[in-house]
Structure formats: structure tokens, C-alpha cells
């Protein structure tokens, strides 16, 4: 029993670290720009597809894809922000939500038309294949890699935002953009780059996911609801919040799958409803 449970908990942690990585981009965009980026799931899907297309048509391998794909998709995000998103900054954040919802439909529809629905396989890179037998379970090497990368990226982003000068500017820009601009900081450029970074993070998570999950046009839809719930529970605007919640949720889900599997889908929403009723701004959030 202990053996089985430890295996499940470890899997829960692995999934949790993936959730944390996936939620990071969304938390950053909302935290610093007050934009609810519903297109996050579609951008994640875009990342996975660009990696797959890179391999299929251009022979670009996994390691290059990790660097190039987020750059490409991040650039697309920058273009989108310049052309469309920035027109909505002064308005109710719900408009940003609706615009990005529209983007999701467009992207998913286009990819469905082009690639059908069954999806495509992306191979695990040779260096990361196989795994080790830990006794209580078999740990695939790739999954261990996911945990390591997630922790590095999450910690790195947190560090930049909370502890460096650049991060200080970003946070100031959220509080009072006009004042910051008066100090000579190019605030619109900062916003654009922030959005681009959040999108790049989503795409990065997509590349990480491609070897494990089928690359399909609807893979984003499958995760977007959970990611939103994580960011809301963690406290919209708190980087630490979404990281901790991502990990925590992975554990809770893992336990649920072990004890009563049919509910594992809905447990995140139950937790979200409870948290919002008891701590309205989320676990780590600040009331705005």
C-alpha cells in the first residue's frame, strides 16, 4: 500500500511540476498586464505543433526546438499584442478575455482544418529515453527531465520578476504605468515584451509536452480550464501562487486518482470554489 501510494505521489509531483510550468505564462500575463489570456491553451498547442512541424519538414530536432519554438511563437504573440490586444488595455479586463477566446477558436479551427484531429506523434529524444526502476515504480527519464526543467524555469522567472531591477520595473508598470513612463521607461514596449514572454512560456510548455501527449489541435482545450483554475486558486497575479498551486494540485489530483478516480477531473474545480469562497483573492493573491 505504501509502495503504491508513493508511486502515485511521485507521479502527482511530476504532473504538478508540469502544471506549474504551464500556468506560469498565464500568471505572468495576468499579474503584470491584467489581461486574462484565454489563448494560452491555443498557444501551448501552437508550441507543440511548431516543434512537430520543425521536425517533420525541416529536420529540426528537439533540443533546437526548445529554443526556437518559444522564440517563434513568442514573436507571434508580440505581433498579436501590437495589432490587437493593446487597443483593449483601458477597458474592462473581460474584453481581453473575450478577444483571446476568439483567438483560441480561430487557431484551433485552422489547425483542425489543416491537420485533422487524431493528432501526430512526436518522439522522445534519444538522450532522454528509457528510465530507471526506483523499486516502487519505473520512472521514465523524460519525466524526470520535465521536473528539472520546470523547476529551473519557474524559479528563474520568479527570481527575475521579484528580485531584479527589470522585474521591479515590470511590477511598477502594473501599479502605475503613467508614473513609470514619466521616469523614462518605455512602458508600452515593456508590456509587449511581457506578453511575448508569457506566450513563449506557453509554447515552451507545448514543446515539453509533445513527446508525452499526442500533438492534436485540441490539446490546449484540454488543459486550459485546469490552468485557469490553478492561476485563480494561486491568486491571480502571484507567480509564487501559481507555482505552489500547480504542484499542490498535481498531488491532490494524484491522490484522487488513487482513491476515487472518476472525480479527478472535477476535484480542481471543487478546490477552486472552496478557496474562492474562503480566501477570495486566492491563496497568495492580493486584493486589488
Amino acid at each position, binding site marked *: 500500500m505504501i*509502495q*503504491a501510494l508513493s*508511486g*502515485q505521489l511521485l*507521479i*502527482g509531483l*511530476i*504532473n504538478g511540476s508540469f502544471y506549474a510550468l504551464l500556468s506560469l505564462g498565464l500568471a505572468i500575463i495576468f499579474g503584470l498586464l491584467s489581461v486574462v489570456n484565454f489563448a494560452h491553451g491555443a498557444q501551448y498547442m501552437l508550441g507543440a505543433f511548431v516543434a512537430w512541424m520543425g521536425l517533420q519538414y525541416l529536420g529540426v530536432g528537439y533540443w533546437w526546438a526548445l529554443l526556437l519554438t518559444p522564440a517563434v511563437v513568442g514573436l507571434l504573440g508580440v505581433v498579436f499584442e501590437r495589432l490587437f490586444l493593446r487597443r483593449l488595455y483601458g477597458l474592462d479586463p473581460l474584453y481581453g478575455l473575450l478577444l483571446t477566446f476568439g483567438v483560441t477558436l480561430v487557431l484551433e*479551427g485552422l489547425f*483542425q*482544418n489543416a491537420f*485533422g*484531429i*487524431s*493528432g*501526430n*506523434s512526436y518522439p*522522445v529524444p534519444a538522450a532522454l529515453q528509457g*528510465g530507471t526502476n526506483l523499486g516502487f*515504480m*519505473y520512472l*521514465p527519464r*523524460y*519525466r524526470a527531465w520535465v521536473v528539472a526543467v520546470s523547476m529551473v524555469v519557474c524559479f528563474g522567472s520568479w527570481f527575475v520578476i521579484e528580485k531584479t531591477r527589470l522585474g521591479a520595473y515590470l511590477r511598477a508598470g502594473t501599479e502605475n504605468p503613467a508614473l513609470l513612463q514619466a521616469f523614462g521607461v518605455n512602458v508600452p514596449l515593456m508590456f509587449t515584451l511581457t506578453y511575448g514572454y508569457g506566450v513563449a512560456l506557453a509554447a515552451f510548455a507545448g514543446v515539453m509536452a509533445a513527446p*508525452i*501527449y*499526442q500533438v*492534436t489541435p*485540441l*490539446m490546449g482545450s*484540454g*488543459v486550459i480550464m485546469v490552468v485557469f483554475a490553478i492561476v485563480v486558486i494561486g491568486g491571480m497575479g502571484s507567480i509564487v501562487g501559481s507555482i505552489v498551486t500547480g504542484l499542490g494540485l498535481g498531488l491532490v489530483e*494524484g491522490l484522487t*486518482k*488513487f482513491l476515487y*478516480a*472518476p*472525480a*479527478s*477531473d*472535477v476535484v480542481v474545480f471543487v478546490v477552486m470554489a472552496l478557496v474562492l469562497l474562503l480566501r477570495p483573492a486566492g491563496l497568495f493573491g492580493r486584493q486589488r
Partner: protein
Amino acid sequence: MTRINRNLVLAVALTLGTVAPASAQVSDNVVKVGVLTDMTGAYSDLAGPGSIIAAQMAAEDFGGKVLGKPIVIISADHQNKADIASNIARKWFDEEKVDAVADLVTSSTALAVMPIAVEKKRITLLSGPGSTPIEVEYCTAYNVHYTYDTYAMAAGTGRAVVQQGGDTWFFITADYVFGKSLEADTTNVVKAAGGKILGGVRAPFPTTDFSSYLLQAQASGAKIIGLANAGADTINAIKQANEFGLTKKQALAGLLVFLSDIHSLGLATAKGMYLTTAFYWDRDEASRTWSKRFFERHKRMPTMVQAGVYSELMHYFEAIKAAGTDDADKVMAKMRELPVNDFFAKNGRIGPDGLHRHDMYLVQVKSPEESKYPWDYYKILRTIPAAEAFPAPDPKCPLVKK
């Protein structure tokens, strides 16, 4: 019989013979078939545009006309939504003179359209959906359930795998009606064949990450892991089973897997899996010939659903020709009366409950080394005769005489 009587009989026969063709009538002077399928969602690869192509091939191969009237094929996307399917079917029957609706992949759309067909006295020719209630509680007199049902898939794989030595099972089931009925059907068959069920887990539908469930499956020590799910769930489960090294000691049994799924997984991941199918493109010369023609147009080999659409429409046209009319009652009677004998099925018979009982095939997915040419995916282990594959007509269907 005296000479006078014989002459009388002859005279009457001749008169009837000359009268009969005049009563050969086709409503609205056209035989119109509507292919209602999923063009963009989860089932678009196993049915979708391929089903439409199959229908067009049937119309052309039959000569483009039956009883002197043209055959017309139209199509629409129901997006797996029962209300959109209902809307389209009603409109087709009321305004577009459609005589039969074909495919109807996704059981909820089929179940929604079947009663409408009864109301309007038209025919539904199902190839895509699988739920067994279609020929039990919800059976209609105007319905043909042609290609497969979940019982056949479960029974075929379940029984045959136990006979091959896979006698301990663990289920990973998609937690909804379809998944649960697939699990239930297989459980019965496995136990009857002498196997044991060591346990199971119900995963929410849909699920992307199966690691937790696969771990439980591994811990159970069962020789066979039955996947009572379909579509993206199955594909993810198989991929991750490989990742976690499950397939080294245990074998997977896919209870509802299509050729399109194997194609998107790749042989390296899917190799060794057992599954049941109604049709395989490379099974014999006749299947190969037809499938290659299909491939020219669709650029992919046909799944059993798509081949089923072709075969059912050919049978439908034959029935119209034999009945001399496209009147639904007469055509249904002929479809049940005539056996099906083509590349798809030998000695296939449509029962009073509308279910088409034909031979099924137990196959195993080849490894990449065993595969010699594109789409060379399956090796056929054995043929499951119709009587073994499908259950007898269930008296819960009112059309079945007790």
C-alpha cells in the same frame, strides 16, 4: 395441374410481369443519400471525409443510377452534436427528398436521428456508431446497424485474447456510458472464456495523462491491460504505456481502436497490441483492390467505418433494385432478406433488430521490423465467425419475435 390451369397461371404471370415494372417507382425520381458524419471533431479521421468518398465510390460503382433514376450523394457535418444532427436530418427529409441517411458516427447523433427516420419513413444506415442499445432498447424497423457494435469489439478481443493465453486482465475504463458498457461486455466474455479480472480503474472522460492509472495497472500484475476507451484517450494511454515501460511485461488490448489511431501512433508505440476489426484493407485481394482505389482519392487507407459505408450503400442500392421501388418498408425487407457478399463481409445477414451480423477479425499490430510497406500494420490472427462475434437478437427489442 391441367393444361388449362397451367395456361391460366402462365397468363396471370405474364400479366403480372408486364404490370410489375410499371409499379417500380422511385420517389421524387431520384435516390438521394445523405452522409451525416463528423468532419472536424474527434471522429473525423475514422469517418468524416473518408465516409463521403466511400459513399461517392458506391454511387459510381453502382453505375450512378438505380431503377433508371440517378443516385445523388450529399453530406453534412454534425459536429458530434445530437441537436445539429437532428436539424440536418429533419431538413433533409422534409425539404431535400433524402431517402436514406448514412454513417452517423457518434451514438448520440444516431440515436437522435433514428426516430426521425421512423416518423418520416426513411432509412438510417449506421456505420460509425457502436452502442449496443441501438439494436436493443432503441431498435427501429427502419434502421441498419452495419459495421460493428461494442459487444462485437469487446467479445472478439476478449475471448480471443484469453484463448491466446492472456487470462488475467486489468481495465482502464473511460468513465462514461460507452466506456463502462465496453468494460462490462468484455468482463462477461473474459470470465466465460476462463479468464480472471484482477481489477480496474475508471478514468474521467476525457483524460490526457494516464500515468497514475498505468501505474495501478502495472501494480496489479495482470497479463493484459484492457483499454475500455476510444479516440484520443486510447492513443494517449498507449503512448504513455510505452513510456512507462509497461509493454515490456504486459500486453495492451484496445477494445475500440481504428486503423487511423494506429497510423497516428506509429508502429513503434502500438506494436503488439491486440484488437478486433470488421475490415482490414490488406486482408485479401478484393479488399486490397478496393482500398487502393479509395487511397487514390483520400490519400489514406480506409478504416472499417469507411469501408462499411461503401458496402452498406451498395447493399442498399441492390435492395432497391430487387424491391423495384425505394419505398422504405419494402427496401428494408429486401435488405434483411438478401445476404451481404462482398469484400467487406461474407454471408453477412441483417437481423430483425437491424444489426448486420458478419465475420470479424482478431488482429495484432505489427512491429516496425515486420512492416514491409506503408500502412502494413496488422497481422490477422484469426477470423471470428458472425455467430460468435455478435449476440443473438435481444428480445428487449420489440421487433424481435420471442
